[in-house]
């Protein structure tokens, strides 16, 4: 259960990027956040795991206040929040396995991290998750030898290695081609329901938001102006969010109805 109340973020003396945001997400729901560039989507996501410092407001994860945490307390709560990035943010020169295991860095000692001697349970977990998304055979390949979709899967597995209580995804498909990005969206959707994990996805692609998520939140100028089910997300809502700014991405083709397994293959 994630509860954001009255979240404000202001850079320097400029206009606030987030103007008193309220949002609560519970259970295993997949929530997509749509909005034009600069609407504050990315800032909001980064406020949750405190890669960006909120100016004021409150963020509670399962009843635990995240704002104002310091030092090891902050690191301990970051462990419980997985994050997937637009640019994958993998460590290119390390192997896939090392990248995956780096999701456990918050749990292991410095010496274990240095010598790459991770506990056996972590290694088992890594293999299982990698098999689950179909990248186990790449374990000892260098991360920069993989394709975009494979890299994003490594990033998803890394986030899941943290045993997160919530998963944040910042434009996870923006660097991928349409087919691969659908696969990744479907993967996030099925993983969320398998692990009863709430997932927050920033996304440009409105078609995908409608297809793969249970709830759409629309943002504009740092404020929430739509919150509802995909079926209620009509042209009016679209105009309110993007009107006069830019047109959102729309997939032209018919949405393909694959099963999760096919998407992963």
């Amino acid at each position, binding site marked *: 259960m994630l509860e954001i109340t009255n979240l404000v973020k202001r850079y320097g003396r400029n206009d606030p990027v987030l103007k008193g945001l309220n949002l609560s997400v519970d259970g295993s729901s997949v929530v997509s956040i749509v909005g034009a560039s600069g609407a504050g989507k990315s800032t909001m996501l980064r406020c949750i795991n405190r890669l960006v410092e909120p100016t004021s407001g409150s963020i509670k994860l399962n009843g635990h206040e995240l704002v104002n945490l310091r030092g090891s307390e902050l690191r301990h709560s970051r462990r419980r929040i997985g994050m997937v990035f637009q640019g994958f943010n993998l460590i290119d020169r390390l192997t896939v396995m090392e990248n995956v295991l780096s999701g456990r860095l918050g749990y292991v000692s410095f010496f274990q991290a240095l010598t790459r001697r991770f506990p056996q349970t972590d290694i088992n977990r890594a*293999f299982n*998750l990698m098999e689950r998304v179909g990248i186990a055979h790449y374990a000892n390949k260098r991360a920069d030898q993989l394709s975009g979709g494979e890299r994003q899967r490594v990033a998803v597995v890394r986030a899941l290695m943290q045993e997160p209580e919530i998963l944040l995804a910042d434009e996870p498909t923006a660097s991928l081609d349409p087919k691969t990005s659908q696969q990744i969206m479907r993967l996030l959707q099925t993983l969320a329901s398998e*692990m009863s994990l709430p997932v927050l996805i920033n996304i440009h692609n409105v078609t995908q938001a409608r297809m793969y998520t249970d709830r759409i939140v629309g943002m504009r100028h740092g404020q929430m102006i739509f919150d509802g089910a995909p079926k209620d997300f009509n042209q009016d809502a679209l105009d309110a969010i993007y009107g006069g700014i830019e047109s959102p991405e729309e997939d032209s083709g018919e949405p393909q109805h694959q099963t999760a397994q096919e998407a992963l293959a």
Partner: protein
Amino acid sequence: MTPVRTATDASSGRVWKKPPFIANPWVRYGLVAITLVYLYWAFSTLPFNWERIAEGMPRALRIFGGAFPPSFERAGLLWTGFKESFQIAFLSTLLGVFLSVPIAVMAARNVAPLPVYLLGRTIIIVSRSFHPVIVAILFVAAVGFGPLAGILTLTLYSIGFVAKLLAEEIEEIDWGQVEAMRSVGAGYLKMLIYGVFPQIMPRQIGLSMYQLDSNLRASAVVGIVGAGGIGGTLMNAFGRYDYDFAFAILLMIIGIILVSEGISGWVRKKVW
């Protein structure tokens, strides 16, 4: 989370080890062994004079105690030393940059015939293989103490550096311009002046500024073996235990090097 947990138990015991940095185990452990043996060998054969080294700490204290505050009393001596260093650096840069042009032409394969090319390359290689201090000590032996040895040293040093880069630059010029000059009937020299030099000119000015800067640094050093300039003053101050004066000289050297680095960087940005 639950499904994953059960799966974990089912397939427990899969091993993973980081693939080693060097795949071949013989090479891997061989390198470690060689390093250890080398370290042991080096440390055991090097002649350390431990009794003398043990005196180091009190000596260091005395030296640094004597060095504070730095003494700028003999400003006259400081000024002559730095003036001479600057003159050495300036004259040798000019000489070196001028002489490096014909040598660079000689050492560029595309404009020089083979025997000339080999001669040019030899000059460059010889002037590059010795540290300027070694060259300086030889020139001091040949022409005596003083700035003349310094100028000769740094001229050679400049030729080694500038001519090498310039020759590489000439080898990479746009050949079309040379052919154009040839086609209008220009002779060899005219071909060089109109077809080659304009292409390398900006680079040459940048190199000269860079060389002036590094000659200024080197001129402080060649003085230590008697080739004139502030280095000699520094050496004398050390020799006479005038640590406060030596420290003043050092501070001046650092300051001048920083300023000259700034100026040379600024000019190169302007020209390039």
